[in-house]
C-alpha cells in the first residue's frame, strides 16, 4: 500500500527537522508509542500499541533513518512485529519552507502488513494509516507551536 500526503506544520524546516530527529519528541508524538529508545546512530527501538479493525496489539520494532539531508529530507524505514502480525514501511519525508514561518511536509512511502492485521484489517488499513499520520503531525504541530512560542 502506498501512503502519500502533505501536511503543513507551523515551524520552519530547520527547526522541524531537528524536532523530528529527537527521540523524546517522537515518543510523545507517535500515537500509541510506549517507548522509543535510541539503539544506534540513526536507529531506534520502538514499542507501539496499534489498533486496526478488531485487532489490537503491541508492536515491537525498529525505526531507522537513512539518507538524511539535513533540513530537507530523510528516509524512514520501519519494521515491527507483534501478535497481530508485522508492519514494514519505507518512505521519504520532505520538508519545504512554505515561504512563511512554517513548513510543508510531504511524505510518501510503501507499507506492507502481514499476519492477522493483513487478514482482518486490510480494508481499514488505509484509513488507520492516515489517522496515525494525522495524529502524529497534530502532536508534532502542538510541539512546534510550543517550541515557536517558547523562543
Amino acid at each position, binding site marked *: 500500500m502506498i501512503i502519500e500526503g502533505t501536511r503543513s506544520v507551523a515551524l520552519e524546516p530547520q527547526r522541524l527537522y531537528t524536532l523530528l530527529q529527537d527521540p523524546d519528541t517522537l515518543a510523545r508524538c507517535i500515537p500509541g508509542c510506549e517507548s522509543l529508545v535510541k539503539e544506534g546512530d540513526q536507529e531506534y527501538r520502538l514499542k507501539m500499541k496499534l489498533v486496526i*479493525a*478488531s485487532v489490537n*496489539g*503491541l508492536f515491537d520494532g525498529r525505526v531507522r533513518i537513512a539518507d538524511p539531508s539535513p533540513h530537507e529530507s530523510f528516509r524512514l524505514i520501519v519494521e515491527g*512485529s*507483534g*501478535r497481530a*502480525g*508485522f508492519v*514494514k514501511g519505507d518512505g521519504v519525508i520532505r520538508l519545504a519552507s512554505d515561504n512563511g514561518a512554517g513548513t510543508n511536509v510531504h511524505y510518501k512511502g510503501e507499507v*506492507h*502488513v*502481514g*499476519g*492477522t492485521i*493483513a*487478514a*482482518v484489517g*486490510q*480494508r481499514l488499513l488505509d484509513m488507520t494509516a492516515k489517522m496515525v499520520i494525522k495524529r502524529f503531525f497534530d502532536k508534532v504541530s502542538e510541539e512546534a507551536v510550543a517550541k515557536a512560542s517558547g523562543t
Partner: protein
Amino acid sequence: MATTTTKSPALLVGQSLRRREDPRLITGTATYVDDVKMPGMHHACILRSPHAAARIRAIRTSRALEMPGVVAVFTGEDVAHLGPVPCGAALPGLRVPAHTVLARDRVYYVGHPVAVVVATDRYLAADALDAIEVDWEPLPAVADPEKALEPGSPAVHPEWPDNIAFTYKQEGGDVDKAFAEADVVVRQRLVNQRLIPVAMETRGVVAEWKPGDRQLTLYTSTQIPHLVRTLVAGMLKMPENRLRVVAPEVGGGFGSKLNVYAEEALMAFVAMKIGKPVKWIESRRENFVATIHGRGHVDYYEVAAKRDGTILGIKLKLIQDIGAYHQLLTPAIPTLSILMMPGLYKCKNVRADLIGVFTNCTPTDAYRGAGRPEATYGIERMVDILAAELQMDPAEIRFKNFVGSGEFPYQTATGLSYDSGDYAAPLRKALETVNYETLREEQRKARESGRLIGIGISTYGEICALGPSASLPCGGWESATVKIEPGGQVTVLTGISPHGQGEETTFAQIVADELGVSVDDVVVLHGDTSLVQYGIGTFGSRNTAIGGTALYFALQDLKEKLKKFGAMLLESDDVVWNRGRCVCMKSGKEVTLPEIAAASYRAMKLPENTDPGLVATRFWEPPNFTFPFGAHIVVTEVDPETGAVQILRYVAVDDCGKIINPLLVRGQIHGGVVQALGQVFYEHAVYDENGQLVTGELTDYAIPKASYVPAIESYHTETPSPVNPLGVKGVGEAGTIGCTPAAVNSVVDALSHLGVRHIDMPLTPEKIWKVIQDRRTA
C-alpha cells in the same frame, strides 16, 4: 409365543422421518471436542507464521516459558522425530515437500505452525505466544498459481524452482480429429476461485496419554477417525492398537475434516511429553489459514462441435492451485474433475492437461464436491457458451447431446462406467416446472422494458459413493456391525463417521424395515475406533450407498440367523421372516424378535451349527461408483443500476437414486445449493501479491446469510442404481455441483444481449455493474 398376527407398520424407507440427531444438537446437549473436559487438562495455542515465505533465523522461547501458567513450549526441533503430515494421493512424478509437523528453518505460507505453547489455561497460552521471539528473514512469495508458473517467479520450495507439483494427462478418443472436423470451436478461461470451507465448528483436538495402559486417546473433529488413527499412529511411530481416535459430534466438515492435520500428531506428542491431557481448539481466524481451502482452479476450455450442436471434442488445460503443501488428498482432487469432464454428454474425444502448482498459500484439498463442482461448472458453462455461439437454445443443445436412457451402462471417454440414468427426465421436469417457453417470452418482454431477466440451466452428473477400493488411496469399502441385544433392541456400529448427514436416522430406517423394530429401539454408534470396527469415513456421498449397503448385508445375515432360531423355537423348517416375527407357514404360529433374542443369548438350546448371540458384521466393497444426475434452473434479475442480482426462482430436480428419507435429501440439496450460491455471489479467498490472506475473517469473507437464500423448489426423479441393493446413489454434494453453472449461466443470460459472454465468480454487484458499464460505453 404369540399366535395373533398384527398388521405390520408401514415401511419407513422412503418416509420423511425427522432427524433423530437434532434434539441434542438444538438443545445444546451434544458433545463436541471442545465439550471434552478432563482432570488436569492443559491447553495449547499455536504460533503461526505471519509471513508467506521466510527463513527462521532463530526462535527464542525462554521469555514465554517464564510466563504465568506456561508449562512447555515446543518448536520444530522438538518434534523433528515425528513423521510428516501425510499425503495419501499418489500420482506419477508427484513432488511431495517434506511437511513437518512444525516448521523448522523456513515457513511457506501464512498460518504455517511454528511453535506450540502449553499452559494451564487457554488465555495464558495465547498470551505467551507474544513472548516467543522469532527472528524472521522474509523471502519473496507467490500466491497466484499462473504467476507461479512464470519463469523467474519466487520458488515456493527452493528445490523445485518451476513451482510445478505434478503434471497429469488424460486422453480419450481422437481429440485432434474431432477438432479438425469441427464446424465451430469455442474457448474460454474459467476461474473456479479459492474458497474457505468455514465449517461451523472449527477444528479441535484433545489428547490424553495413559502411561500405565500405554494408551493414547485422541478426540478430534474429523470425518475419518479410522484413517486418522492409522496415519497419526504412523506419524507417532506407535502401534495402531495403542491409539484410540474419537470423532465426537462434528459440527460440519465439507471435506475440510477429511484430512490428517499436523495438530493431531502435535497434541498427541504434547500429551505424552507433559503427561497431562491437552486441548487445542482452533480459533476462527486460525481456521481461515490453518485448515484446507477448496477449489482454486484456472481452467482453459476448448469445445469443438458441429453446427447442429453435436459436441465432438473437449480440451482442458487445468491449473490447480495446490498451496504450499499436499494435504491428504490434494493432488487427487483435480483428477476427479478430469474424470467428469464430459458431464452427461456423449462426447468420446477428450484431452486434459493438468498442472498442480505450488503457491505460498494454505493447501487446497477436498471441499464439498471436491473436483466435481469444478468439472460441472466447466462443461455446463462451455455448453452455454457453445449454444450462444450457435444461437441455439441452451435446453435444446443439452437434449441433443445427452447420453440416451437406453445406453447404460455407458462407458465415458475418461474411463468411467455410468451406472444408470435418464438424463433428459430431470431437465424436462425442471423446464415444465418453470414453464420454460412462457418464461422465455416474459424475458423477451422484460428486456424491451429495460429489465434484465436471466434463465440459467445446468444439468450435472456426479461421481458418488466413492468408490471401488482400486480407485482410492485408502480403500473404498465400508463396514457395519449389527447387534440385536438380549432385550431385542438393535445396536448398529458403522465404520462411517457422520458429521451432519443424518445416518442415525437413515440407518435406523433401514434397520427398522429389515428387522421390523421401531426406530426408537435402534441405536447407531460411530466415530470411536475402540468401539467400532474399522471403516473409511464420510466423503464423496458414500455413506448410505456404501455404509448403508454394508449395513443392509449385515441385516440379511442376521435375518438368516433369526430364522434359524425361529425355526428351532417353532419346531418347524418352514418359516419366513416377516418384519419382526418369524412365522411358521404351516401353523401360522410366530415368535417375535425379542423372544428370539432372549433365546439366542440364554442359549439353553441352539440350532445346529449355530453360535449363541445375534451379531453380524459385514465389510462391503462396491463394484463401481454411482452416478447421480439432475438439472437446476435459476431465474435471476439483474439490477442494471447497481449490478445486484436477485434470484426469482430456483428449481432443482435431482436424481440421487432411491431415496431413503426425502426430508434429509431435501436438506442436503438446500445446504449444497446455499453453499454454492456462496461461491457464485460472495465467497473468495483473496491473497495479496505478498501471499497475505486479506479475507481472513467473516467480516471480509462473505458466506451466505439466511436472508440471502431464495426459496429452493426441490424435486426428484428416482432412477435406482444397480450398483447396490438399496438402489441409492448419494446426494451430499449434488447441490454444490448443480448450482454454480446454473446461477452463472442465468446472470450471463440476463446480460447476453449486451454482448456479455462470461463473468468469473464471485458475481459481486460491483463486478456486474462494471461489466454493464463497459458494455454501455463500448
